[in-house]
């Protein structure tokens, strides 16, 4: 759906998206990075398992939620890429919580 326009002097960082290490532009939002990689959906909804992707890109729709560094329900449009960041498509309410016992 989206591509990065070629521009001069772009620094990169490395992130892991759905298990794959990729290079993305430094300083952009996770949502922008994931869209530019051709990922078509970001999560499936808890209510009906439907696929969703970013809608507003400004933090007010909560459709761009992904699991980032193990935490579910992170707005990927409001989170910025960092070296080593681990990003996964979120299935429903996200991964099971750990037990403490």
């Amino acid at each position, binding site marked *: *759906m989206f*591509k*990065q326009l070629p521009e001069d002097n772009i620094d990169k960082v490395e992130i892991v998206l759905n298990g794959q290490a990729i290079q993305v532009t430094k300083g952009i939002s996770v949502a922008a990075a994931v869209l530019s990689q051709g990922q078509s959906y970001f999560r499936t909804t808890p209510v009906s398992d439907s*696929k969703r992707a970013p*809608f*507003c890109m400004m933090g*007010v729709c*909560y459709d761009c939620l992904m699991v980032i560094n193990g935490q579910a329900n992170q*707005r990927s449009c409001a989170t910025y890429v960092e070296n080593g960041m681990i990003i996964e498509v979120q299935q429903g309410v996200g991964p099971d919580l750990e037990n403490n016992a």
Partner: protein
Amino acid sequence: MKSHYQLLIIGGGPAGLAAATTAAEQGVSCAVLDEQPMLGGQIYRSIESIPDQRAKKLGPEYLRGKKIAAAFRESSAEYYPNTKVWSLNKEREVGISQNDQASVITADQVIVASGAIERPVPFSGWTLPGVMQAGAGQILYKSAGIVPDNGVVLAGSGPLLLLLAWQYLHAGVEVKALLDVTPLGNHITALPKFPRALLAHHYLTKGIGYQIELKRAGIPMLFGVSDLRAEGDEQCQRVTFKHSGKQKTIESELLLTHFGVIPHIWLTQAAGCHHQWDDSQQCWRPKHDEWGNTDIDGIIVAGDGAGINGARSAEHAGRLAGFEVLFALGIISQKERDSKAAKDRKWMQDERHIRPFLEKYYQIPKKLLATADDETIVCRCEEVTAGEIRQAVKDGHDNSNQVKFFTRCGMGPCQGRQCTNAVAHIVADEKDMPVEEMGHFRGRPPVAPLTLEQLASLKNKEVL
């Protein structure tokens, strides 16, 4: 960061920055709290960091942001990015979070300059991946240099569509079509407002200029479009609509829509400010006077968060709010305030000449606001359809909040931002009553994400 300021400004867009610059000039201790990582708000997003080659393609209006940013940076006002504001109350206690820490700070005066959001208008298929708001396209372009790679269809009603089409044209993006859903009848109903609009003719000539360029580039522009739908198997694959009495389809994996903008009022709602329905702007806005004073002492609103008047007006409104704060703090007299503010008041009036015309011209028809198709999802978070909302009304839940309690509309993470307007319109339509009587979802804090750990961390702090 201090625990108390004379002035706290929430929002880093033109209104917030202008207000801060104005107040700081007179030595007021003030800070701008911005949820974004960089100043500029949405309209001037990434203004300080954008590479020149990208900035040039966005048009001259965008570059104005650089002046506003520079003036702010020169002032003594403090700037706190990545700072979410999750609550505000009448005691002017401001709940903030930065990284994983939350705290509550206070101010003598608070200016809420929270800007606008796209007017969310549900239509069939709007939740499919590949359907986004036009502002989303702008944000991707401004902040990351990211543009559609397989073409895009733009649809809706409002000047932003033309601007985005023009920006994409200059970025080499294939704009497959621009579908304008503005009812053709609006041309006629807006006519009486046209003469006043000529006083702000630069807006009109700019719009016409964009249209001519787009036409020359061969981009199909269709007017009076209706029954807009996005269709596809788990993602957008085509856009269908009616035009000139015919059913039409355009293959596209990306559809960007725009139906105007509305004030982002979640914080003023949670603070308990009184809000009113504006019939012309088709939105709820906080009740305020010329200076931005709400009905809560010490809480002032400025910019599009108070009412939609555009980026230029926001600057002037920010300055007026700044002067009002100086007066409220006893630093200048009322006479001094009035004299310092005279130019801004005049400029604001001039900018507003275009508004009645634009509002009438781009008025969204009720059929779109009160989602006609029963199968269409209205509450994106809880996946509640228009039909379910209508049924709830028939079952006796007869205002927005009762519908919310019964259907869970508005109880998801977005807190009703994407559905409260549509719900109010649907309920009003079912009951054949004015929208304002149906109510806005009762705003509840926290209005920005707040974790249990962050909340718990308030325990050990000196919360006033």
